[in-house]
C-alpha cells in the first residue's frame, strides 16, 4: 500500500511535469501571455453555409465583409472539400465563389475570418444611397403619412426621426400595424425615411456575441445625415453603441447566391479571443502549418471551440468540490451537484440564478412534501418531482416574461433531473434528520456552487484554462494527491476540538 502511495506521488509528479512543459511551450513558443491583459481582443467568426445539392454543376457566391470603418480584418481562410474557390474583388463588395461540377446530398462550406473591432481609417466611407421616394397607395399612404408626421413632430433631425419611428413600430398603434401587413419593420422604416428625404438603407449586420453559435445576420438600418452616418437596430433589441457588431453586407443585395442547389442556410459562430499583439505577427509568418503541439483545441472549428471554452472550466469546478470535501470536509447534497449549479449560474447571471434555485427547490420541497403523504413508489415520486420542476420553470418563465424580465427565461438552463434528485434527497433528509441537516447540506452545496461560480467567472481563470491545456494535467495531479490525503479535514479540527481541553 505504501508502495502504491509512492506510485501515486510519482504519477502526480509526472503529470505536473507534463503540464508545466505544455504550459511553457504555449507561453514561450506560441507566445500566449499568462495574464489576459497584455493582449487585444479579436473576434473569430465562422460562417457555415449549408445547402442541398441538385444534379449538375453548383456555384455558390457568398458576400464577404468589406473593410469598413468599424473593424479590421486580420486573416481569413475557408474550408470546402472538393470545391474550387475564387475570391472576386467586386466594385462594391468582395465575394467568395465556390464551384464544383457535381455533388450529392447535403453540402457544408466554411468561411473563417478574424476581425478586430476598431476604427479603420484606411477604409473608404460608405456611399450614400440615392433617394427613391416610395409610392404608397390607398390606406397605406394615409397610415404612412400619419406615422411619419407623428415622428416628425418631436424633432426634424434625421437621427431623432428614425428613433421615433423605431419606437412607433415597437409599440404598435393601428397605423403602424397596417403598414406592417405587407412589409417588414426595416423596409417600412427605410421607405418612410426616404419619404422624408433622409438617405437610408437596410444592411446585414452580424452581432458579435462571445460563444455564439448558429447566429443569423440581422437587418439593421444605416442612416445618413450630411457627412455623419449612424446605424440603428429597428427591433430595438440591441444598442449599436454598446454591442460589438460588423456590417456583413451593405449594398442592397443578398448575402448568398446559390445555383444548382436549394435550401441554402447561413449560420455564424463566433468566439472572442484574447490574442497577444506579438503572437499575431508570428502567426502571420507561420500561418500555413500549425505545429503538432500547437494543434490543440484551437485548431477545431469555432463552434466546437466555443463549446470547449465552457467545458474546460468544469475541471476547475470539480477541483473545488474535491478540495472542499477532502480538505475542508464540507457536506454537499449530491457530490458534483454544486458544479452543475455553478455552471447554470454562469448562464443565468448570479442574482437570477440564486433566486431561481431558491424558488425551484423551495417550491419543489413543498410539492414533494405533499406527495410524501401518499406513500408513492420511488420512481413515480421522482418522476412527479421532475414534472413539477418543469412546470415550476415554465410558470416562473411566463410570469417573469409578463413582468418584462427576460432573465426569467434563463431558468430553463438549470439541470432539471439533478434539481429533482436534490429535492428528493433534501426532502428525505428533512423527514429523517430535520430541517437543520437540510440547511447544512443545502447551504454547503450552495456555498461550494458560489465559490465555483466566482472562480469560474474569473477572467484570469478563464484565460488560463482556455489557452493552457497543460493546466488540466496539473488539476489531475492535485486531485490525485487529494485522493490519497490521509490528514485531518479542517472541519474535523473543529469537531475534535474538545480533545484539547482534556
Amino acid at each position, binding site marked *: 500500500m505504501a508502495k502504491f502511495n509512492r506510485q501515486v506521488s510519482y504519477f502526480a509528479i509526472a503529470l505536473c511535469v507534463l503540464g508545466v512543459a505544455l504550459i511553457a511551450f504555449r507561453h514561450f513558443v506560441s507566445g500566449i501571455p499568462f495574464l489576459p491583459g497584455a493582449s487585444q481582443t479579436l473576434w473569430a467568426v465562422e460562417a457555415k453555409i449549408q445547402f442541398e445539392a441538385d444534379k449538375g454543376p453548383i456555384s455558390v457566391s457568398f458576400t464577404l465583409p468589406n473593410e469598413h470603418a468599424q473593424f479590421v480584418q486580420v486573416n481569413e481562410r475557408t474550408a470546402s472539400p472538393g470545391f474550387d474557390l475564387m475570391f472576386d474583388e467586386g466594385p462594391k463588395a468582395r465575394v467568395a465563389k465556390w464551384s464544383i461540377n457535381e455533388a450529392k446530398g447535403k453540402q457544408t462550406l466554411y468561411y473563417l475570418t478574424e476581425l478586430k473591432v476598431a476604427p479603420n481609417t484606411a477604409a473608404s466611407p460608405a456611399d450614400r444611397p440615392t433617394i427613391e421616394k416610395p409610392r404608397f397607395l390607398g390606406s397605406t399612404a394615409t397610415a404612412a403619412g400619419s406615422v411619419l408626421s407623428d415622428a416628425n413632430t418631436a424633432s426634424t433631425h434625421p437621427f431623432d426621426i428614425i428613433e421615433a419611428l423605431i419606437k412607433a413600430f415597437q409599440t404598435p398603434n393601428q397605423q403602424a400595424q397596417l403598414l406592417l401587413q405587407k412589409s417588414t419593420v426595416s423596409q417600412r422604416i427605410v421607405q418612410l425615411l426616404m419619404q422624408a428625404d433622409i438617405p437610408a438603407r437596410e444592411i446585414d449586420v452580424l452581432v458579435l456575441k462571445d460563444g455564439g453559435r448558429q447566429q443569423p445576420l440581422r437587418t439593421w438600418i444605416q442612416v445618413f445625415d450630411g457627412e455623419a452616418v449612424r446605424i440603428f437596430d429597428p427591433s430595438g433589441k440591441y444598442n449599436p453603441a454598446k454591442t460589438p457588431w460588423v456590417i456583413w453586407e451593405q449594398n442592397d443585395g443578398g448575402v448568398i447566391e446559390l445555383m444548382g442547389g436549394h435550401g441554402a442556410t447561413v449560420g455564424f459562430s463566433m468566439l472572442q479571443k484574447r490574442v497577444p499583439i506579438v503572437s499575431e505577427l508570428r502567426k502571420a509568418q507561420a500561418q500555413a502549418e500549425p505545429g503538432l503541439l500547437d494543434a490543440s483545441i484551437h485548431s477545431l472549428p469555432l463552434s466546437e471551440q466555443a463549446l470547449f471554452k465552457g467545458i474546460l472550466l468544469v475541471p476547475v469546478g470539480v477541483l473545488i468540490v474535491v478540495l472542499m470535501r477532502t480538505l475542508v470536509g464540507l457536506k454537499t447534497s449530491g457530490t458534483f451537484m454544486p458544479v452543475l449549479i455553478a455552471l447554470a449560474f454562469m448562464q443565468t447571471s448570479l442574482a437570477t440564478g440564486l433566486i431561481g434555485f431558491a424558488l425551484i427547490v423551495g417550491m419543489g420541497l413543498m410539492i414533494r412534501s405533499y406527495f410524501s403523504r401518499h406513500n408513492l413508489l420511488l420512481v413515480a415520486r421522482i418522476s412527479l418531482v421532475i414534472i413539477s420542476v418543469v412546470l415550476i420553470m415554465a410558470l416562473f418563465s411566463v410570469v417573469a416574461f409578463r413582468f418584462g424580465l427576460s432573465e426569467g427565461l434563463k431558468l430553463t438552463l438549470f439541470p432539471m433531473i439533478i434539481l429533482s434528485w436534490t429535492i428528493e434527497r433534501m426532502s428525505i433528509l428533512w423527514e429523517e434528520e430535520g430541517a437543520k441537516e437540510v440547511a447544512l447540506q443545502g447551504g454547503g452545496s450552495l456555498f461550494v456552487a458560489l465559490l465555483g461560480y466566482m472562480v469560474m467567472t474569473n477572467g484570469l481563470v478563464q484565460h488560463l484554462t482556455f489557452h493552457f491545456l497543460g493546466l488540466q494535467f496539473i488539476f489531475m495531479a492535485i486531485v490525485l494527491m487529494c485522493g490519497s490525503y490521509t490528514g485531518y479535514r479542517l472541519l474535523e479540527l473543529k469537531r475534535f476540538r474538545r480533545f484539547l481541553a*482534556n
Partner: protein
Amino acid sequence: MMSTPIYNRLITPLKKRIMPWCIPYFKVHATLKKKGIMGMNCRNIRYIGRYNARKLYPLVDDKLKTKKLAMVNHVNVPDLLDVVSEQHDIPNIHAKVKGTAGFCIKPAQGSGGKGILVVLPADAEAQKEGVSWQRTNGKPLSQQDIERHLSNILAGIFSLGGKSDVAVVEELIQVDPAFTKYTHQGVPDLRIIVFQGVPIMAMMRLSCEASKGKANLHQGAVGVGIDIATGAAINAVQHGVDITHHPDTGQSLSDLVVPQWAQMLQLACACYDMTGLGYLGVDIVLDKFKGPLLLELNARPGLAIQVANNAGLLPRLVAVESRIQTHKTLGSIDERIAFIQQFLTAHRA
C-alpha cells in the same frame, strides 16, 4: 524593521485578529496527532480502503445476509420470525407474529436505522377494542399500518438509491435489567470496532429523549466509552459534550459496567472470522434471556467512538498492524483478546 510605523499600524492588528483563529487550530492539530485521533480521510484510505474488500460489503449491508451468515457460524442473533419479500406475502405477517411479546420490522438494506419499526403488544384496554399492537411511544398500530410499512420497505423507500428491498421481521429484544435504568425507550447497544479480528475500542450507545429513542450519536444519543479490558465505563458524551449522568433517568454513567463482557468480546471477534472484513463495526445487544446477540455489522463505522472514549484509534490500529508484522498471525480469538487487553493495560499508565 520590526518597529516601523507600517508594521505597527498594519501587521500588528492583523496578527491580533488572525492569531486567535490560528493558534487553537494548530494546537488542536498537534493534540489530535499526539493522541492518535483518526480522521475521516485516514479511515477511508488507510483502513476501510485497505482492509475491507469491496465484494464483502453486501454481507454487512444486507441485514438478512448478515443474519443467515451468523446463524451458520453459530453467532447468536435475535430470532427471525419472518422475511417478507413479495407484496402478496404481506398479509401473512399477522399470523407469524401472533402471540409474540412484540417484534421488530427492519428493511434488510436500510442504513442508519432508517425504516426500523418496533412493535409492542397494545395495552389491555386497546386490546379489547381489537387493536393488538402499539408503537414504543404508546400510539396504537393497526394491521393496515403494519402492512403499509412493509409495503414501503419492499418499494425501497428506506434503502440506499431506492433499490427494492425485503423486510426482516425479528423477535423483540428484552432489555437486560442491568441496562433498563440507562435507557429511555429503545434498546441500548454496544458498538465494538474490530480490527483484523482484534476488538480495539468499544462504546455503549444509550437512546434518550433528545435522540427520540434512536441510538445514533449525531441524533443526540448518549455515547459511553467502555474499557476493552474490563467492560467498565470510561467517559460519556452527548452532543459532543462530556456528561456524567443519563439526561432522562439521572443514573450516574460512571457506574456502568457491561455484564457478560467476555462473551461480548468473543462475539465481536467471531464476526471478523465469519465476514473477513478487516475494519468492522459490530453492534451487540444484551437480551435478558439469550445474552449477547449480534444486531448488525457496519463496514464503515463512524469516528465518534473516539470522542466517547476520549482516546484515539490510531495507536491501537498501529499496535495491531505491527503485531501482525512481527508475529505473522494474531492467533485464536482468545489470543487476540488477551493481546489487546495486555496492550491497553500496559499503555494506560
